């Protein structure tokens, strides 16, 4: 085309970024890569390689090694070896290494960006302006945490060797989110990039080595999902971090269950993009572009469900279609493109399948009449209107450039629709009314909420999901805990091997209710006057009889019958969970009450417990046979603990994050919701209080199973609750067999978290079964903790488990 012709039609032309440097790097490796272990290239024993393609041209870029068990072992061993010294390296020294990595990323910025686009298919504008700058930013930010670790995180230690498995949609950025916090805090890593995209991780490995990082701190292995499984299953891995599909996340939860490994999962989403009538609609349209056509829509937090107020829906959709006509799809290395290629043929087919499904479900398709390159895996930006929540395309994650649109009538309906999903990764809210926007931001169940903006990321703000979008955060102070363990706590090594098939035994939690004890089966209690006093369940603020009308005996260590409690069953749990939800829905719901109110109630509980401390101490002596002095000490500590969490009731609500946003990024520490708690047998009162108090202080409601051996402190305690203004349903107590009741709790899909303090088998079963709805779990692997020790029995670990962090991004500008 001549200048003269262009002068007349004013077309766009190609603006190609040169692949020369990236090709030269590939050539320097003969387009064949081994594994990067101990800062060296390792050739796998089996010499198996598989090709890596450029999805825009379908040309082979290189081939990389297929790691087998031997290589995974080698990499983990290297990381273990390095951990010995790296974890002992002072934080101020680790900070220098991270700073060097950050600088080195900046020095090789363009090479990283070009290779990323060639390997993944994303437009060079995005890899150059978003992915790689954020990669550097994460190392800068975490260099700071390395520097400050001894001062700011003195109660913690690194976890150990971390196995990290990352997805193909943001190969470098996801690597940064995983590697930077891990090594900053003294861990060493073995990272496995996604099967489709592994070249930039290998380039990154060289960049890290060039920056002088000691061998073994960062190891990169490539391979199929088999290699990922080997890594996750490796016994010498202390923590597994995964970003990817909810399906694989579920598998990993099951495979690592009961092992004592920490696990963080960042999974899928179907995030709402909510537009109110008083939004700047033209800007909201650009928001949609950034929400669903960023990275070809292959973004876990993509705003893929457009919810638009009914009265502006027609206008908005017309504007959107006009905007779609302007999008340019093509060569990822062309700087004048909005969208590049879909990562792989199978993904392209999945997307196309979903679009066909949407049409079959009655949806109306809109795709702009814009050119696509003749070859390569390109997909048009796609809008499906006329679908309802009942349609699969509205519920399922498509992971492509496909937007579904729905309408709503009121803010309440917008919130309801937004939350009508199993996911909870992100949300975007558009309104120029700050009251409305922030109200909706508060109500949406999602880990990131962007007000009048979308898809903003920064190392200083945590990213992660609610519900089946996973657990754990990456970024911010809240993200550090994924790579830390309390200083007092050794790595749990449960004395339990799961059954051969890896699944919980079918009879786990099976329980046959008790029958009356015959004389001779218990010691008659000669010292107490026998008054028939049978504690009940405590559900929804009512003392209720067990649904099954079965009763279990409570014996002292000497075999004396000291009481009887209800033998709870699944229906008691069901009722308790309903009551716990009702306590959130009543007005004001428990989580909606301000911290001052919850603090007063906790102080009041402490006050009423203190008034009866001798009685509670006597009960502990009878149940456990401990010395009166230690029982008294337990009660005193329980009262202190209530004070601790009364104190925290209004002091753990969140923080302002120092992100790059002009405006405010607020981390809100929200309650998890309904928490099921199974108490241990040790310290029957103190452990019960130590678990209940942080949960309710932070706005959760609980279904709590007291120690099955020593339940009477808990059943006595409901009288204290009754006199302390605790609203109905906030604390629900179900007595009975721990594992029997826990099984119903952990399988219940409307329970948000389960804390289990029982045995190693139960811990395995709880972690395994939690995969059904990806609820958060906290288990003890059958290892006791000293509840009298303040370091072990209270504090940030408990608050961390009782909260989930939502980051709300609020830009400002007059």
């Amino acid at each position, binding site marked *: 085309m001549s*200048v003269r012709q*262009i002068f007349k039609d*004013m077309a*766009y032309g190609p603006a190609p970024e040169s692949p020369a440097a990236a090709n030269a790097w590939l050539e320097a490796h003969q387009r064949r890569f081994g594994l990067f272990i101990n800062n060296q290239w390792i050739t796998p024993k089996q010499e198996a390689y598989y090709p890596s393609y450029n999805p825009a041209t379908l040309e082979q870029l290189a081939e990389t090694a297929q790691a087998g068990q031997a290589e995974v072992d080698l990499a983990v061993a290297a990381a273990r070896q390095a951990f010995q010294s790296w974890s002992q390296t002072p934080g101020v020294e680790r900070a220098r290494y991270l700073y060097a990595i950050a600088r080195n990323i900046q020095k090789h910025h363009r090479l990283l960006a070009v290779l990323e686009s060639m390997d993944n298919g994303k437009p060079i*504008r995005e890899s150059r*302006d978003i992915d790689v700058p954020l990669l550097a930013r994460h190392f800068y930010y975490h260099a700071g945490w390395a520097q400050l670790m001894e001062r700011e995180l003195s109660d913690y230690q690194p976890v150990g060797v971390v196995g990290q498995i990352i997805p193909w949609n943001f190969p470098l950025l996801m690597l940064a989110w995983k590697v930077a916090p891990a090594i900053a805090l003294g861990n060493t890593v073995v990272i496995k990039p996604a099967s489709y995209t592994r070249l930039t991780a290998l380039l990154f490995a060289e960049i890290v080595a060039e920056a002088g990082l000691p061998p073994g701190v960062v190891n990169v292995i490539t391979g199929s999902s088999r290699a990922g499984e080997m890594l996750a299953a490796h016994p010498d891995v202390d923590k597994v971090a995964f970003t990817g599909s909810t399906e694989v996340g579920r598998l990993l939860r099951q495979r690592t269950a009961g092992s004592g490994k920490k696990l963080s999962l960042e999974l899928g989403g179907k995030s709402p993009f909510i537009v109110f009538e008083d939004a*700047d609609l033209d800007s909201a349209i650009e928001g949609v572009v950034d929400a669903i056509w960023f990275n070809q829509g292959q973004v876990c937090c993509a705003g893929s469900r457009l919810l638009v107020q009914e009265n502006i829906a027609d206008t908005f959709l017309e504007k959107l279609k006009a905007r779609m006509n302007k999008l340019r799809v093509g060569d990822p290395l062309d700087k*004048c493109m909005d969208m590049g290629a879909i990562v792989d043929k199978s993904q392209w087919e999945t997307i196309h399948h979903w679009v066909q499904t949407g049409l079959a479900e009655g949806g109306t398709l809109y795709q702009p009449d814009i050119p696509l390159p003749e070859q390569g895996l390109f997909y048009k930006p796609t809008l499906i209107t006329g679908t309802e929540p009942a349609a699969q395309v509205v519920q399922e994650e498509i992971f492509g450039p496909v937007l579904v649109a729905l309408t709503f009538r009121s803010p309440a309906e917008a919130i309801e629709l937004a939350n009508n999903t199993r996911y909870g990764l992100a949300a975007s809210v558009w309104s120029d009314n700050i009251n409305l926007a922030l109200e909706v931001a508060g109500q949406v169940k999602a880990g990131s909420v962007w007000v009048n903006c979308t898809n903003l990321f920064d190392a200083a703000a945590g990213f992660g999901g609610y519900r089946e979008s996973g657990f754990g955060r990456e970024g911010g102070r809240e993200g550090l805990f994924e790579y830390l363990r309390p200083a007092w706590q050794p790595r749990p090594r449960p004395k339990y091997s799961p059954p051969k098939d890896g699944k919980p035994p079918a009879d786990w939690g099976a329980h046959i209710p008790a029958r009356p004890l015959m004389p001779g089966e218990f010691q008659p209690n000669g010292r107490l006057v026998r008054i028939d006093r049978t504690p009940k369940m405590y559900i929804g603020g009512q003392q209720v009889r067990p649904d099954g009308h079965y009763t279990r005996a409570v014996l002292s260590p000497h075999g004396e019958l000291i009481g009887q409690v209800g033998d709870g069953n699944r229906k008691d749990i069901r009722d308790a969970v309903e009551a716990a939800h009702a306590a959130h829905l009543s007005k004001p719901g428990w989580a909606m009450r301000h911290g001052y109110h919850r603090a007063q109630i906790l102080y009041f509980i402490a006050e009423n417990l203190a008034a009866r401390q001798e009685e509670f101490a006597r009960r502990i002596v009878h149940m456990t046979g401990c010395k009166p002095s230690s029982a008294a000490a337990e009660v005193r500590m329980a009262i202190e603990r209530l004070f601790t969490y009364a104190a925290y009731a209004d002091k753990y609500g969140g923080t302002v994050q120092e992100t790059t946003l002009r405006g405010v990024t607020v981390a809100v520490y929200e309650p998890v919701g309904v928490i099921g708690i199974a108490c241990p047998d040790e310290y029957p009162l103190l452990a019960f209080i130590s678990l209940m108090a942080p949960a309710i202080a932070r706005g959760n409601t609980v279904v709590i199973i007291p120690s099955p051996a020593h339940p009477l402190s808990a059943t006595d305690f409901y009288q204290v609750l009754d006199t302390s203004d605790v609203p109905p349903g906030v604390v629900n107590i179900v007595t009975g067999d721990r594992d029997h009741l826990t099984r119903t709790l952990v399988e219940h899909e409307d329970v948000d978290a389960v804390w289990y303090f029982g045995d190693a088998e139960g811990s395995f079963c709880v972690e395994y079964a939690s995969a059904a709805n990806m609820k958060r779990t906290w288990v003890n692997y059958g290892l006791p903790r000293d509840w009298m020790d303040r370091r072990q029995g209270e504090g940030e670990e408990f608050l961390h488990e009782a909260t989930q962090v939502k980051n709300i991004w609020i830009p400002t500008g007059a």
Partner: protein
Amino acid sequence: MASKNQRNPGIPLELGWVLGVHVNRSAVERRCATLPARRSIKKDWQAAWLLRAITCLDLTTLAGDDTPGRVHRLCAKARQPLRADMRLALGAEDDRLTVAAVCVYPSRVKDAVEALQGSGIPVASVATGFPAGQTPLAQRIAEIEQAIEAGAGEIDVVIHRAHVLTGNWQALYDEIRQFRATCGSTVQMKTILATGDLATLKQVYQASLVAMMAGSDFIKTSTGKESVNATLEVGLVMARAIREYVQRTGYPVGFKPAGGIHTAKQTLAWQALMKEELGEAWLMPELFRIGASSLLTDLERQLYHYIHGRYAARHHMPLG
């Protein structure tokens, strides 16, 4: 709906429309921050686009020391903005390649008209108490009449900012309506919003709407005398207002950023903004002007680099 080429006659003031506007500054800023990076114009395309930009220039001198001699020199440059050898190299020797207009103060219109005789290049005159608009209305209107009398084919009027800042849309509408009536059926009117003096982007959008409702042919960002001149943010908001006005009424209205545009790179960003938000018609001088004085030299140097692959010396480009 009006035909695509019909001149905007204006419409009655629709206050509900004006008051219902929402503009979110941070979102506007984000769009502007990424738009130039989304649309990279290189090589032949860049040359063609810069050549096109020359034809959209309102080559301007608005200084206290303007003299007839200064205006004559500028007009000579307006007639021949690009060296003959460069035109030849670009294959543009046959095309009419002049700037769109020469823009001067009312007192210099006569000089410019003389100097541009036979060139077909219109003289644009600022008016209505330029740059502050703080003179009595009768005087402001008289200025328009005098400039037209002296031969101006285009009038760049400034608005009375107080009307925007106090939300007196009716008064703003009435004044611009009178300016338009004074311009009559043949003289194009560009309305300068002086956005650097306005408080918010919302006011920029609202003032844009009122100016178009009152019959402006173009809306223009700045006088060049405010402390902040043409920014992409303001441009985006004005472009969106134009788009909405065109959609609702069918009358196309032109856009003119002015002040602070010195480089080819900035120019390309403005052009990309026009093409993305409004379409190709807004890249042509009928609907797009750039008000600038020093920009042309940079355009020439970039074109020289395109032709020869070497960076050009400023003093090799004839002065305007």
